[in-house]
C-alpha cells in the first residue's frame, strides 16, 4: 500500500473547473456541428389516454426546411426503450398513454423550422378515460405489477398488544429533475450502418443497446460518447434514451447527422420524474414511543410504464426503516399505473420517499405522546449489537447513527435552541419558529446485484502521462476528479499527469448506469485494478532486469522506489517501453458480499450504509404560509474522504435539492392529465434566497468505511438529499405551536406556503370543533 495523502485528501478543484468558468467545457450541444447537420423535433400526444386514429403529417412534410419525418412505421427493429422490462415504446402503436408521449418526429434544417413544423400535424384521437392520480389508480386497481406484501414478525398482534395506537396517512410529491442542461442527443452516421451518438445520458451502454435493437443491428455497430453532462440526478438514467433513439432514427432515415435538443417545456412534459408516494399506516407503540408494530400500505405513481419503477419501489421498501429497528412490520406496496409520464430515477431512487413515511410516523408519535421528537427517534434507533437486523434480514454491521446523532445534537446546540425557540414562540403570535433533527441511513449498491460491476481502461504513454477511461459519467458529482486523484495517488504522480476523457462504449463496454451513488466506488476500483496490472508489468520488468526484490514497491512523488533502487517514474516508463513492457490495461471490479433473494425479500442488497443527520430551524408566517430556513447544521459520514471539497459540494447541493422537493417544488397535472408545471416560471426549484442564513456542514471525523471501498471512503451522491427531511419537520414543528391540540396537524409534502396555510386553517377549525 502506498498512501500519498497529499493528493487524496487535497480538495482539488473539479477537473473541468477552469473550463466551466471559461465557457470552454463542451456539452453535447456545444460540439462542433458536422456538415449537413439536421435538427430534430418531437410531436407528442395532446391527450392523456386516447386511441390514435390517424396521424396526418402532410402539412408537416411541406413545412419550411423539413427534410424527413419518422413515425412508428420507420422503425426497422424493436420499438422499445424500456431499460429493464419492455413497455416503453418510442412511438406507441395504437394508444397514447400520456399527455406528452412522442408520436412522430421531424428533421429540418434549423431547430426553429423543426419545432414550427411539428405544430402542423393533425392527429385524430378517440379519447379514453385517463387515470391520473394514485387514488384513482388504487380505486381501479390499475397497477404496473402485482401488489407486493412483506411481513416480518407479528405486526398485527404487536399492534394489538401495544399501549398506544395511531392511524394516519401521508404523501410526498413528485419532483422534476430540472437538470440545467436539457435532454440532447446527436447521431452521426459513420459508414454503412454504424453510428456515433453523442448523448447527454447517465447510461451510455444501455443507450447503445437500445439503438442497436431499434435498428435491428448488433451492439458493435453503435458507439456512444459522453464527455460530461449538465446534471442528471437520475433524469438521464433512462429518460435520455428516447431522444437518442429518435435522433438516430431520423439520421437512419435521412442519412444525415441529426441533433435533437429539447425545448425546456417539452423536456419536462415528455420525461418522467420522481415517484410521488401515498402511504397509510397503523402503528402500535409504547410510552417511550418505541414502535412495536407497524402496518403500512405504500403506493406510488409509476406513470404509464414500468421503466425503473420496480427497483425504485423496492428501494422505498428497503428504506422504510431509515435508522429505526422495526421488528414487527407488514408492508403492502402498490405500483400504480397512471396516464402520466413514466416516473423514473431521481437522486435517492425511492429511498427518500420510504424514509419520509417513517419519519412522519415518528413525528406523529411524538406529537401524540407530547415527547420531543429526538427522544422518540433515539429510542427507536438500531443498535450495534442487538436490534440490528433490518426487515429484509440484513445485519447492520457499520452502524454509527447513535454517536453521530448525539454529536450533532451537541454541536448544533439543539437543546438550547429548542428552548430559545419556545420562548420566541410564546411571545410571537403570527410568526412561529420551529426546529427538527432527522437522521439518515442510506444503503449503497444497486439492489439488482449484477449491475454492481465496472470496467476501466488505462494507458501510460511513454512520456509518462496517463490517459484513462472508465464507465462512469461525469455529471457534476466529481467522479472524474475523485478517480483521477485515486489514480494519481496509486501511481505517485501529480494530478495534472492524469487525463480522463469521454466515457465511450468502445473503450469500456457493458457498463452500468452512473447511479445508485456507486459510480466512484465501482469505477474507481476498476481503475485501480487496471493500474495495479500495469504496475505489475513494470515491477516484473525491474525484477528481471535488475534482479531486485519487488515487495513493497512505492510509487510516490514521481518516483518509483524499490528496496535498493529508485527510478524517476518518467524514466522508468520510457525504459519499460524500450524493453517492450505492456503499459496499458483494462480493469474490472465487482462488489463483493452482496446478494438478494427478490422472492422472499431477504438478503444483503447493500455493501455498506452511509449515515448522516441534520438540524433545521425555520420561521413560518402563520398568516401566509411563507417560511424561511434560518439555520441548518449537518453532520455527514463520508468515510475517509477522497476530496472533501467535492463531498461538501454534494452535501450542500443535496440538502438544497431535497429541501426543494419537500417545500417548494410542486408538480401538478390538470384534470385531463396535462402537466401544468413545465417551465421555470411554473415549476420552482430553489434559488439563492432559499439558502439558510447559516449553513454549518461538517464531516463526521470518526467516519471510515468498514468495507473495502476505495480509500475507505463513503459516497456522498444520494445520501445528503435526505438530510432535508429536517427542513420539512421543522416547518411542521413550527406550525404545531399554533394550537394545543397538536395531533391534528396534517401536512403533506411538499410543504408549500399553500399547504402550510391550509394545514394551519384545518388545525384551527378542528380546535374550534373541540372547544
Amino acid at each position, binding site marked *: 500500500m502506498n498512501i500519498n495523502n497529499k493528493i487524496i485528501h487535497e480538495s482539488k478543484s473539479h477537473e473541468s473547473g*477552469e473550463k466551466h468558468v*471559461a*465557457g470552454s467545457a463542451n456539452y453535447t450541444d456545444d460540439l462542433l456541428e458536422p456538415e449537413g447537420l439536421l435538427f430534430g423535433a418531437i410531436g407528442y400526444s395532446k391527450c392523456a389516454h386516447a386511441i390514435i386514429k390517424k396521424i396526418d403529417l402532410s402539412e408537416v412534410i411541406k413545412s419550411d426546411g423539413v427534410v424527413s419525418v419518422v413515425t412508428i412505421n420507420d422503425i426497422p427493429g424493436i420499438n422499445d426503450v424500456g431499460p429493464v422490462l419492455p413497455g416503453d415504446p418510442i412511438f406507441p402503436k395504437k394508444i397514447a398513454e400520456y399527455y406528452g408521449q412522442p408520436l412522430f418526429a421531424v428533421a429540418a434544417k434549423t431547430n426553429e423550422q423543426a419545432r414550427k413544423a411539428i405544430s402542423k400535424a393533425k392527429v385524430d384521437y378517440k379519447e379514453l378515460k385517463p387515470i391520473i392520480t394514485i387514488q384513482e389508480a388504487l380505486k381501479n386497481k390499475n397497477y404496473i405489477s402485482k401488489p407486493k406484501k412483506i411481513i416480518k414478525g407479528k405486526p398485527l398482534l404487536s399492534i394489538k398488544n401495544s399501549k398506544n395506537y395511531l392511524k394516519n396517512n401521508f404523501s410526498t410529491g413528485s419532483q422534476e429533475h430540472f437538470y*440545467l442542461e436539457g435532454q440532447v442527443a446527436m447521431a452521426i452516421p459513420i459508414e454503412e450502418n454504424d453510428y456515433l451518438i453523442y448523448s447527454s445520458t447517465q447510461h451510455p451502454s444501455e443507450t447503445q443497446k437500445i439503438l442497436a435493437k431499434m435498428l435491428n443491428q448488433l451492439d458493435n455497430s453503435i458507439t456512444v460518447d459522453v464527455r460530461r453532462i449538465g446534471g442528471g440526478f437520475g433524469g438521464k438514467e433512462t429518460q435520455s434514451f428516447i431522444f437518442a433513439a429518435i435522433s438516430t432514427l431520423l439520421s437512419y432515415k435521412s442519412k444525415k447527422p441529426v441533433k435533437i435538443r429539447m425545448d425546456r417545456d417539452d423536456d419536462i412534459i415528455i420525461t418522467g420524474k420522481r415517484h410521488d408516494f401515498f402511504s397509510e399506516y397503523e402503528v402500535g407503540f409504547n410510552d417511550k414511543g418505541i414502535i412495536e408494530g407497524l402496518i403500512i400500505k405504500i403506493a406510488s405513481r409509476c406513470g404509464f410504464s414500468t421503466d425503473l419503477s420496480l427497483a425504485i419501489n423496492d428501494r422505498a421498501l428497503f428504506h422504510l426503516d431509515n435508522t429505526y429497528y422495526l421488528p414487527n412490520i407488514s408492508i403492502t406496496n402498490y405500483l400504480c399505473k397512471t396516464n402520466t409520464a413514466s416516473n423514473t430515477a431521481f437522486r435517492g431512487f425511492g429511498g427518500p420517499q420510504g424514509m419520509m413515511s417513517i419519519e412522519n410516523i415518528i413525528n406523529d408519535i411524538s406529537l401524540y405522546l407530547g415527547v420531543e421528537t429526538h427522544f422518540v427517534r433515539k429510542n427507536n434507533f438500531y443498535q450495534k449489537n442487538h436490534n440490528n437486523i433490518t426487515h429484509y434480514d440484513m445485519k447492520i454491521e457499520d452502524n454509527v447513527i447513535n454517536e453521530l446523532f448525539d454529536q450533532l445534537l451537541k454541536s448544533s446546540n439543539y437543546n438550547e435552541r429548542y428552548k430559545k425557540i419556545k420562548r420566541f414562540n410564546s411571545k410571537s403570535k403570527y410568526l412561529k419558529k420551529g426546529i427538527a433533527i432527522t437522521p439518515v441511513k442510506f444503503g449503497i449498491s444497486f439492489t439488482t446485484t449484477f449491475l454492481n460491476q465496472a470496467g476501466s481502461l488505462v494507458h501510460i504513454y511513454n512520456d509518462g502521462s496517463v490517459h484513462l477511461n472508465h464507465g462512469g459519467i461525469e455529471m457534476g458529482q466529481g467522479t472524474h476528479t475523485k478517480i483521477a486523484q485515486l489514480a494519481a495517488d496509486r501511481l505517485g504522480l501529480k494530478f495534472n499527469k492524469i487525463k480522463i476523457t469521454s466515457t465511450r462504449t468502445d473503450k469500456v463496454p457493458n457498463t452500468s448506469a452512473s447511479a445508485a451513488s456507486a459510480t466512484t466506488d465501482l469505477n474507481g476500483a476498476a481503475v485501480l485494478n487496471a493500474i495495479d496490472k500495469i504496475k505489475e508489468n513494470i515491477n516484473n520488468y525491474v525484477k528481471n532486469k535488475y534482479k531486485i526484490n519487488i515487495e513493497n514497491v512505492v510509487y510516490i512523488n514521481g518516483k518509483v522506489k524499490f528496496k535498493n533502487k529508485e527510478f524517476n517514474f518518467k524514466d522508468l516508463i520510457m525504459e519499460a517501453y524500450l524493453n517492450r513492457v505492456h503499459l496499458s490495461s483494462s480493469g474490472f471490479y465487482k462488489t463483493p458480499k452482496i446478494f438478494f433473494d427478490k422472492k422472499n425479500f431477504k438478503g444483503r442488497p447493500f455493501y455498506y450504509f452511509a449515515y448522516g443527520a441534520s438540524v433545521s430551524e425555520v420561521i413560518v408566517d402563520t398568516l401566509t404560509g411563507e417560511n424561511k430556513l434560518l439555520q441548518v447544521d449537518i453532520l455527514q459520514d463520508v468515510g475517509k474522504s477522497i476530496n472533501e471539497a467535492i463531498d461538501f459540494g454534494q452535501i450542500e447541493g443535496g440538502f438544497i435539492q431535497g429541501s426543494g422537493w419537500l417545500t417548494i417544488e410542486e408538480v401538478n397535472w390538470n384534470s385531463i392529465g396535462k402537466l401544468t408545471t413545465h417551465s421555470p416560471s411554473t415549476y420552482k426549484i430553489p434559488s439563492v434566497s432559499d439558502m439558510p442564513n447559516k449553513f454549518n456542514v461538517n464531516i463526521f471525523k470518526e467516519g471510515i468505511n468498514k468495507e473495502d471501498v476505495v480509500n475507505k471512503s463513503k459516497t456522498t451522491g444520494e445520501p445528503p438529499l435526505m438530510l432535508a427531511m429536517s427542513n420539512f419537520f421543522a416547518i411542521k414543528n413550527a406550525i404545531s405551536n399554533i394550537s394545543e391540540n397538536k395531533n391534528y396537524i396534517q401536512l403533506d409534502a411538499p410543504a408549500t406556503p399553500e399547504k402550510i396555510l391550509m394545514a394551519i386553517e384545518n388545525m384551527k377549525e378542528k380546535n374550534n370543533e373541540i372547544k
Partner: protein
Amino acid sequence: MPQKIRFIRNNKIIKIDEVDSNETLLNYIRTKLKKTGTKEGCSEGGCGACTVVLGDLKKNKIIYKAVNSCIMLLPSLNGKQLILVEDLIYNNKLHPVQKSMVKFHGSQCGFCTPGFVMSLFSMFKNHKNYDDKIINDSIAGNLCRCTGYKPIINAAKNLNKINNSDHFSLNNQKTIKLFKLMKKTKKYLLSEYKNKKFFSPTNVSELRKILENNPNSEIISGGTDVALKITKELKTLTSIISISSIKELNFFKINKNFIEIGSATPLIDFQKIIKRYYNDFYEILLRYGSVQIRNVATIGGNIATASPIGDTLPLLLSLNARIIIESKKNKKTVPLNKFFISYRKTILKKNEFIRSIIIPLLNKNIFKAYKISKRIDDDISSVCGSFNIEMKNDIINNIFIAYGGMDEIPKRAINCENSLKNKTLSESSINLAIKKLEKDYNPISDARSSSKYRMKIAKNLLMKCFLEIKDNNNYRINEY
C-alpha cells in the same frame, strides 16, 4: 433603407448586415458567432444560463448590465458592447471572477456556471463592495441545480478582497471612443429582412408616425413579455417597433405631489426612485423577476401586459396612479383602474402608446404591500395585495385596496374599501371587511395556487396589514 446593426465586442465594432428581427441574441451568439460558452437552459428568462453582459455608454461612463440573451431580440444589441463569458479571459488568463469561482468550487456539472460568472462579473463592475444583499440580488436570476449556491456565494464574497480593475477598465477609454463612433449615426434604425420589419425610433414624434403608418405592429419595450411569443409560442412577428432608444420615454420627474415616470424606464431604475417614497413597493420590485429581467423590463411594459399577476399593478392601483396615453392625434390621462378591460385586454388602441405613469405622493398615508409566492426570488405571485390608507384621528378617512392574482385583471376591492371607510381601524371592522372580499373577487385555481388559498391569503393579508399598523410592527419573515 435597411441599416446595419453595430455593436462592440473585444475592442472592435462589429456590423451585422442581415438581421432577422425575430432572432434571439442567444441564437446569434451560439450559431453565428459560434461561441458556445453561453448556454440555453429554458429560453424564457427563468434560469440565467444564457446571461451575457451588455455595456452601454451613459454620461461618458460605461454601464454594465446582465441580461438574458434568450429573450433579447438581436436588434436590441444595436449600439451596445457585448461581453460573453469567453471574453473575460485576457492574455490566456482567467478573469478574477472566474478564478474565484474555481477556487471556491463554484461549479459542479458546470452548465449553469457561465451564467453565474456573467452575473457576478456585472456585480463586480457595478459595485465596489459585495455584501450579502448585493450578492443575493446579483445571482437571484441564476438557477443552479447542483451546488446549493453556498460555494458560489463564497466565490462572490471573496471578490471583496480583489482589486476590481481588469482588462475592461484597462480598455475603458478605447471602448468609450468606439461607443462614440457608433453613436454618430443618429437616425432611427430600420431593418427589414425576410419581410420582417424592425423599427427603432429615437424620439416620440417618429414613434407616433410609425405607429400611425404601421398599426399592426407590436410595440416592444424591454421585450421580456414579447420575446416569449417568439421563443415559446413560436410566432413570427412581422413588424416590431422598439421604444427602448427613445430618451423621452425614459425619464422621471419628481415634485411635491407626484412622480412621473417614462414608460420605457427599466424597473431597475424605477426601483431606486420608488424606494425613497414607498419602501414596500421597492421590496416587491426586488423580488420582481431578477436583475437580468429588471435591467430590461419596463414599467410601461408591465402595465401594457395587463397580466392579472403583474406585480406593479395592484400597487399602482392602490396608489391611484394615472397613465398618459398618446397617439399621433391625441394625448390623454387615464386613471389606471379604468385601463384594464378583461384578461390581458386594455383600452389601448393600435395606434396608441403609453407615454408615462404618474404616481401620487401621499406621504401622510400608510402604504403596505405584500407579494405571496412559492419561491422568494423570481416567482410569479399567487396573490399580491396593496393597501393605501389615509387616517384621520383614528378614523379611516380613505382607503384603497387592490389585489393581483384574484381576478382576470388586477383590481381594486371596492366593497371591502367601502366597508372600511369612516370606520375605526379595529379588529371588528377588519373582520367585516374581510368578508366583503368574497364579494369583490372570485379567484381561479391554476398551476400556482388554488382558488381557496388565494381567497384565504387575500383575507389574511388584509388582517396582516391591520395587525402591523395596530402593533406598529412589521411581521415579515425576511427580516429574520
